[in-house]
């Protein structure tokens, strides 16, 4: 079987801004794959390229072996997308919205109705089936996006920041649901800002930054790449850091002292501790207490994506996006639209008012 997703040297340019920079990525069938990256990393652009909402500038992108442009019908039929933005048909009750979506994917009307009921029950908003989207709460809207992605029974489920801005209960409900779906065989591509989410759910994660792939690994592999901190309390006041450093081997990347406290940065805290204890005791230090702080995936993420020389454009775009809160969007898309989401929302609000006044055409 071909991979669920395979991209080779995928490029997307918005004018002079390169949103995807020769991105090569493979997601195997049945995998739970995470896509991590700061705002503007190109995650949403990548997803939108797969579903046909962005036209690539170069490279290759396939879904289950189908080219996303040449074989766009087969590729899109395999995908269920729960996007970051609320892009739901406002004219119809949500059950009908789901039936329409199922219909577009070739599912006959009777079956579409059954599927709509089924997925609404599955995400827990069946009792709201006759409501329109605008009348749902934020959490229910998020659930509906997932229901819409599921109603076509996709082989590849793409979740773009599915838990952004939702409460803890809903987040856990969504985690349980997508885990269940993955266990049933659905390939899942998840983008998220929540490192805990990726760590908890994903088989593998790719870290993206400025349109290119920084690394792909399992969450555990990534964590092993980070440095741990061994915190030690000595029986007596610690000598200077340089004295301690000279007592330890090269495995100690950094040493700091404060009173009777020592902090030593090492690669793998668990396996290095015996050596540290041995070396300190050999140097005449008595140890009263010891604790290892493991590197969080979040710290590794920050390390990997830190760019001290970001361009002015990208930095300012990121901060504009960041002002939108956890729903921060793809910088590239914003650049393409020429305005921030916040501005769009303002315009949309103005026009909603206009439409109320003018009536619906």
């Amino acid at each position, binding site marked *: 079987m071909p991979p669920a997703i395979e991209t080779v040297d995928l490029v997307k340019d918005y004018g002079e801004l390169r949103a995807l920079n020769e991105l090569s990525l493979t997601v195997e069938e049945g995998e739970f794959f995470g896509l991590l990256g700061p705002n503007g990393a190109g995650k949403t652009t990548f997803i939108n390229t797969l*579903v046909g*909402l962005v036209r690539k500038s170069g490279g290759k992108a396939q879904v289950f072996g189908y080219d996303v442009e040449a074989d766009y019908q087969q590729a899109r039929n395999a995908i269920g997308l729960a996007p970051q933005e609320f*892009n739901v*048909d406002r004219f119809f009750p949500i059950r009908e919205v789901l039936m329409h979506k199922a219909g577009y994917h*070739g*599912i006959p009307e009777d079956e579409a109705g059954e599927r709509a009921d089924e997925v609404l029950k599955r995400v827990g908003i069946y009792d709201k089936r006759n409501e329109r989207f605008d009348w749902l709460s934020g959490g229910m809207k998020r659930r509906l996006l997932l229901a819409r992605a599921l109603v076509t029974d996709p082989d590849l489920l793409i979740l773009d920041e599915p838990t952004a801005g939702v409460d803890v209960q809903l987040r856990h409900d969504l985690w349980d649901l997508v885990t269940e779906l993955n266990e049933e065989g659905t390939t899942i591509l998840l983008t998220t800002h929540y490192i805990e989410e990726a760590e908890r759910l994903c088989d593998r994660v790719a870290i993206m930054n400025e349109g290119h792939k920084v690394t792909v690994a399992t969450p555990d592999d990534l964590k092993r790449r980070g440095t741990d901190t061994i915190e030690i309390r000595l029986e007596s006041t610690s000598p200077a850091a340089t004295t301690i450093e000279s007592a330890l081997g090269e495995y100690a990347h950094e040493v700091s002292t404060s009173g009777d406290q020592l902090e030593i940065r090492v690669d793998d805290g668990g396996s290095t501790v015996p050596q540290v204890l041995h070396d300190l005791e050999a140097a005449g230090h008595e140890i009263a207490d010891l604790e290892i702080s493991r590197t969080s995936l979040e710290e590794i993420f920050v390390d990997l994506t830190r760019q001290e020389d970001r361009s002015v454009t990208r930095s300012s775009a990121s901060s504009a996006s960041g002002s939108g809160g956890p729903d921060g969007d793809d910088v*590239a898309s914003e650049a393409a639209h020429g305005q921030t989401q916040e501005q769009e929302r303002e315009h949309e609000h103005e*026009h909603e008012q206009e439409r109320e006044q003018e009536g*619906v055409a």
Partner: protein
Amino acid sequence: MLSVGFRALFKRELLRFIRRPKNTFMPPAITNVLYFAVFGMILGGRIDSPVEDVAGVDFGYILFLIPGLVVLGTISNAFENASFSIFHGRWNEYIHETLTSPLSYVEMVVAYVSASAVRGLIVGIIIAVIGRLFVPISIENGLFLVATMVVIAALFAGLGIIGGLVARDFDDLTVMNQFILRPLVFFGAVFYSLTMLEPIWQAVSLLNPMVYMVDSVRYGLLGYSDMFEVAPAAYAEFVPLASLGVLTLLTVVVLTIDVYLFKIGYGLTD
């Protein structure tokens, strides 16, 4: 062509306007009742038919008005429906539901166009029925009338798709309908006959494509065409059929452009 997906999108598009008659069918119905009442009954009684002297037939002004008003209502609504549906979907981004589906670009365009054309035709029929309440009508060339109405409804639905794709805000849609479409129709011999114009203005009017649409529908409905009077006698009788042929060709060209725009994602994708 009539795949499940196509039928689902076509039905969605139909339901969108059918469930909102107050927004979609009532306004043109009321407007045309006013047109017929004021121009037909109140003023029309004092206006000689613009064609009776030259054609030797006494239609009465109200009957002369009906084809033009039918065309005006049909093309305005076909255009408005398509442009609004596409632009509103773009604005709120729910058109992504369609764009991320396995529907082919041809199916998408044909579903949007045919649903919008249906709305235009329903409005055209409503206007004809209202006209019938004011004056008896007998259809002279039924098949020609139906063919012409279907073609012009599809043509303007197709143009509406382009309008919906190029519009950047709702004001653009208003501009297209009020400042481009309506003036062309009003100067398309809806309210007057070309025979009433000086030769120079007749010649200018013949550059307006709306003239041929209004004239073709008038020919289909009443059996009278201004072209019989203003076109060279040698081929005057072929003008209605030629108009239908050109309009059909134009419709095919516009729909092809629609499909191309969907394919390249113009106004739809980044």
